């Protein structure tokens, strides 16, 4: 009987130690899971105005090879207060983060955003070119 108990205890102890030694999933500085994915691209792009309505005249053209996003906005759009929204590939994240309204009014120097892949190894910088519909 005693032997049974000690054997059980030993088995349990071993199991516990084994579990305890299991490494936690790696997370990055934002508390996001670092995965094994290396894909790194923007799949969709949206621009909202100050009234939270879209200002695009048509779908944005995203070139994942040249890393550019071309978007045409309505005449009269207030370029100082736009809210960009990116759809990224699974597990990827954006740098810098979008925290609110962004000023896109300097059309000569397009804004740049970097997409970081799920494994945090691949970084691709996208340029956003805005043209105002005449």
């Amino acid at each position: 009987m005693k032997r049974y108990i000690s054997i059980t205890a030993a088995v349990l102890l071993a199991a516990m130690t084994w579990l305890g030694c299991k490494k936690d999933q790696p997370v990055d500085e934002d508390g996001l899971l670092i995965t094994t994915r290396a894909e790194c691209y923007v799949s969709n792009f949206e621009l909202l105005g100050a009234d939270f309505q879209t200002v695009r005249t048509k779908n944005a053209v995203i070139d994942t090879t040249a890393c550019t996003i071309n978007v045409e906005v309505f005449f009269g759009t207030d370029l100082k207060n736009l809210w960009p929204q990116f759809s990224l590939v699974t597990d990827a994240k954006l740098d810098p983060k979008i925290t609110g309204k962004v000023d896109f009014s300097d059309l000569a120097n397009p804004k740049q955003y970097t997409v970081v892949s799920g494994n945090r190894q691949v970084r691709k910088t996208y340029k956003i070119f805005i043209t105002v519909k005449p």
Partner: protein
Amino acid sequence: MSAKYHQHTVFLFALLLAMAGCKEKDYAIPEPKGVMQNDAIKRSIGPNLVGQRIEFTYAMALPAARGKLVSAQVDASIAGAPATFLEHRSFYTNSSGVDVGVEVGSPSVNKDNATTVTFTKDTMAATLRYYYVVPEEARGKSVKFTFTGKSSNGETVTYNLGPYNISVQDMKLDLKPVDAAACYISIEDMAVYTAAEAATRPDKIDLVYVYRTTSNYLHSFVAPSANAQYLPGVTLPNGVNRATKLIRTWNLRDQQLARLQFGVFIDDADFEKQRFDAATDAAINTKAEAGLWVLTADGKYKAYVFVNAVNNTAKSATVSIKRYRLN
């Protein structure tokens, strides 16, 4: 011991439950109070604006043996505008859903703060509507109401309602700016002006309404100071150059401005809170049921301009304005 104990406790509980479950309440017809009674409610909702009505209903009733109604009176803490009245008819709703009035008294008389109806029909129960038209002196203050009913044997009942806050803001409905004619909108005057009229008061013109047939322009509200490309073909009168700030918004269909089914109201607090950091100077291609938050160049007024309707053939729009004075 313990098992018995448990048994007894369970038994007692069961007994109690059974007793509670079996208790039956006999219904008794409520006894009417044998005295004159009254009640009042406020019917209108939303901010109480100067020049607008606040609507109440006041009900009085007494048993047949105790006489009849003699008079009904409403005292407001601030005398209402002359248009204030107490309805001298009692309404019922007929089968078609129409309110039909039955005259029970002589038309109401306003004297100082009191509005009185004297009953001319032998009646022991009546509900009268009271329309208080907010006077200018009540702006930004609060108003209280005391409703009083009298019966023929000297009984008096009173009912107090309020205090109700009166908003500071003003409202103007259904201004019709027309492209190339009366297209200059003044928030300070709550009016639209032609170019000739605007030239005489350039310091009061806050917005220009422009209509162009190009599909990306159509009905636009532009500050006079805006870039010339947003005022195509518009020659502003001399001196009209105020830098109005505006923010276009959707889905803010204030019921008092829009008179639609949406129960949304803009009150003074909303004007206080409205920020203009993200403001621009042109609202191009504005659709019906959109609105503009406006801050005048001198910082004197915040306003909400609601676009009730736009008309492409007449090249005009219909706008309603709520305005809030800041200093």
